[in-house]
């Protein structure tokens, strides 16, 4: 890389420096997460009831939604309040792909995600004419159009929606297990794919966009192209989540699948967990899920409280709970680099270049 | 003469970078002080701090007999401090006349109104319906000064009036300064242009890297002294601050 050579040419003591990405604290954190995933994979056999297992699919869908919404808003600087367009398209899509085309459920779910990503490409050319808050409402209009069109399309059940029939004749345990493992696998894959993306060149560019989009553009980061990539990927993720929600609930309706409520959930998850980090949305999804399980009986008051908490976090702890906990120093998914003098990697926090 | 402005040993920092180190300065009522220095000497920082856009981390600013260190910028205007900022900062979508009227937002009484500003800068009357976005640099500068005067300040802070302007335009603008002083307004000019600064000022204070290196009556300091202080070479030949 040219930057390395120019550093060397300037006679900076590069050989005395050690560049670390993550290090053992991150490995330890990753190990804990891997252990949790293994536990979740084994759990249905000895811990959870079928009802719990079905609920956990919702958690995995929320992790996917939070992670991909954060990819857009936290890294791409695109605040969408219309991802329910793809949640709905994914939900309806998976039912059509499984029941009409006859794809096996896991293939149909993944294919629904791909379809949503493809739908997002032409849509992005329309929406990217709007910036900032106007982009946000524009995405909502698109979601409304998706909903109205779905209602009007022949064979989509109008206002009452569709039921999934592909699972008919499959026994309940097999069905629940299939959806559970599919959801777990997809949640893990989406998080890992996001991590891989953020460690790539594109990710570096996105981090620059997050910090200052004008400066990033002036340094040659293809802002629009990176944002489009992120939008398409996130929409595919929303499609996956929608497909999982549909095969988990066995039926879809326009009002439930295209509900702006999903956007509220995604925003709470990401904002409360920590915008612009990979860990934040996972933490946020777990907190949100736990609160939902505990407080669901309070109905509207629960949503009022969530709204108030989200506002408080935005104003008082803009980096979210993960930001408060890790203080920017600790990453389970190390995206950035730290520079240490050779030999004492955990002691020094900054380096004197003199 | 009574003291109007007293800047007492202020430190100002942008994050970790300290832009001003213990600057002390006084301006008497009715006089014109020129603060000069090269780029990065801390002149604009000093004016912004006096106007209230920046807060000193140490020291005190006293204006008209009381401490204004913690008064927000918009209230300092009402107490009689006006700044024509670096870069002029004309309101682009407003016409020249609207810019001037906004200057009078605080409704401080005094000699300056649309009529007297137009008399001092006849150019502005011709341009009164033109939008800020369509003004040349010199026109913007005249508007900026007129706009500051509309607040009827006791103390007018002028930041780099000459920056980026043609000499003939600079001369035009400086020609208006005596009129301003005649109406009783105290003026603090910050300049890189020594010649202009020395002609209008009663007193000169020279900054270098955030410290005062030379101070004296404009008539008494020599060009050589000022130049030495300006560039930080042979500062011993100039009269040290204090």
């Amino acid at each position, binding site marked *: 890389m040219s930057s390395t050579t120019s550093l060397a040419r300037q006679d900076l003591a590069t050989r005395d420096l050690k560049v670390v990405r993550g290090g053992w604290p991150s490995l330890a954190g990753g190990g804990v997460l891997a252990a949790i995933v293994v536990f979740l994979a084994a759990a249905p056999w000895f811990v959870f009831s079928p009802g719990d297992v079905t609920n956990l699919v919702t958690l995995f869908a929320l992790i996917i939604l939070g992670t991909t919404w954060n990819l857009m*808003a936290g890294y791409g600087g695109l*605040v969408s*309040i219309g991802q329910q367009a793809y949640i709905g398209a994914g939900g309806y899509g998976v039912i059509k792909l499984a029941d009409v085309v006859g794809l096996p459920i896991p293939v149909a779910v993944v294919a629904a995600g791909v379809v949503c990503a493809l739908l997002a490409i032409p849509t992005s050319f*329309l929406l990217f*004419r*709007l910036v*900032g*808050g*106007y982009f*946000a*409402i*524009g995405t*909502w*209009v*698109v979601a*409304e*159009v998706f909903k*109205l069109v779905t209602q*009007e399309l022949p064979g989509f059940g109008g206002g009452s929606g569709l039921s999934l029939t592909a699972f008919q004749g499959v026994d309940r345990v097999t069905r629940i297990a299939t959806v559970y493992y599919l959801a777990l696998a997809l949640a893990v894959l989406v998080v890992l794919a996001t991590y891989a993306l953020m460690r790539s060149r594109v990710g570096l560019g996105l981090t620059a966009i997050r910090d200052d989009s004008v400066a990033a553009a002036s340094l040659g980061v293809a802002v629009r192209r990176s944002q489009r990539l992120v939008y398409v990927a996130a929409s595919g993720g929303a499609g996956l989540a929608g497909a999982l929600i549909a095969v988990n609930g066995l039926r879809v309706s326009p009002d439930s699948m295209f509900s*702006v409520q999903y*956007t*509220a959930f995604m*925003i709470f998850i990401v*904002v409360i967990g920590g*915008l612009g980090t990979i860990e934040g949305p996972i933490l946020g999804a777990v907190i949100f899920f736990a609160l939902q399980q505990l407080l669901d009986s309070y109905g*509207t*008051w629960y*949503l*009022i409280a*969530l*709204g*108030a908490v*989200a*506002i408080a976090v*935005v*104003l008082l702890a*803009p980096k979210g709970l993960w930001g408060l906990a890790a203080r920017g120093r600790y990453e389970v998914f190390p995206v950035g680099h730290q520079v240490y003098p050779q030999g004492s990697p955990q002691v020094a926090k900054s380096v004197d270049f003199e | 003469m009574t003291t109007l402005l007293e800047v007492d040993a202020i430190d100002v920092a942008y994050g970790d970078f300290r832009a001003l180190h213990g600057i002390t300065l006084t301006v008497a009522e009715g006089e014109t002080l020129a603060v000069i220095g090269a780029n990065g000497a801390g002149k604009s920082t000093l004016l912004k701090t006096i*106007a*209230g*856009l920046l807060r000193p981390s140490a020291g005190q600013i006293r204006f008209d007999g009381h401490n204004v260190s913690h008064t*927000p*910028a*918009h209230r300092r*205007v*009402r107490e009689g401090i006006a*700044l024509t*900022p670096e870069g002029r*900062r*004309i*309101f*682009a*979508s*407003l016409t020249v006349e*609207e810019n001037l*009227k*906004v200057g009078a*937002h*605080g409704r401080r009484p005094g000699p300056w109104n649309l009529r007297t500003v137009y008399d001092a800068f006849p150019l502005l009357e011709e341009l009164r319906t033109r939008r*800020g976005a369509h003004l040349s640099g010199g026109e913007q500068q005249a508007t900026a000064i007129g*706009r500051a005067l509309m607040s009827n300040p006791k103390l007018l802070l002028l930041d780099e009036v000459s920056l980026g302007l043609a000499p003939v335009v600079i001369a035009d603008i400086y020609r208006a300064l005596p009129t301003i002083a005649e109406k009783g307004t105290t003026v603090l000019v910050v300049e890189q242009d020594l010649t202009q600064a020395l002609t209008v000022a009663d007193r000169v204070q020279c900054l270098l890297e955030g410290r005062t290196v030379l101070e004296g009556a404009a008539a008494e300091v020599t060009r050589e002294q000022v130049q030495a202080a300006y560039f930080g070479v042979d500062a011993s030949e100039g009269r040290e601050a204090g």
Partner: protein
Amino acid sequence: MDWINAVLQGLLLGGQYALLACGLSLIFGVMRIVNLAHGVLAVASAYLAFWLVQLTGMPSFLTIAIVIPVLAAVGYAIQRGLFNKALRHGELSPLLVSFGLAVIGANLLQEIFTADSRKISIGDLSTSSVELGDLRIGVFSLITLVVAVAVIVGLQLYLSHTRIGRAMRATKDDPEAATLMGIDERHMYALATAIAIGTVALAGVFLGMSTQFSPTYGDLVLIFAFEAVIIGGLGSLWGTLLGGLVLGVAQTVGAQIDPAYGVLAGHLVFLVVLLFRPQGLLPKAVVA
């Protein structure tokens, strides 16, 4: 004849959209904030008026005299207490805060007034109309359109010719330079929001007099108001009026083709404008 009638009814409906949209336009124009709580505030105004009528039996139109100042005060407080603080964290934060407010508002309304649909009674006025040949013009729709035009003209005059209006435009151009003119930026923003939410309150009461509303109706209000603003052109109040009219006509003409296509036709016109004229129909015509 049906088509001419559809266009005419669309123009009348458009008056309501324009009235609903000008507050959104103003807040964005001055502060670059997209207020996602806009629709909820309109519906909350309708509920407040409804509640006042229920409680006191006062004439429906008189509630405006109470609802506008109350909502303007709410707007001032939201700006001072939340948006001004959020603005310091960048442009994302006000958007998220306003979304949080929208969620809180809609659910609070549901908690207080239940999810049932309501309507503010205006007696005979809701059915009375003037005949124009074969065409019938609803008197109340006509009043709404006239009020919309009056509000937009009034806002325009206020911004152009008053001391506070000038200060608002100056603050919009350069907030820091405005403080050097003795303008308190935070107060000025709060005043702008107060005025904007005041117009939202007026629009909300009119909305509640013309249609059935429920706590979630704010979603549609926000979308329609937004479409009107974008169709007309950002930062232009006249554009917002035109955008409202275009949206209204699109919806009624769409509904004439098939009643199910009304709202969809409005969305499609919005998307077509976005595609071929993203700057809107009347961009930068006037300041605000």
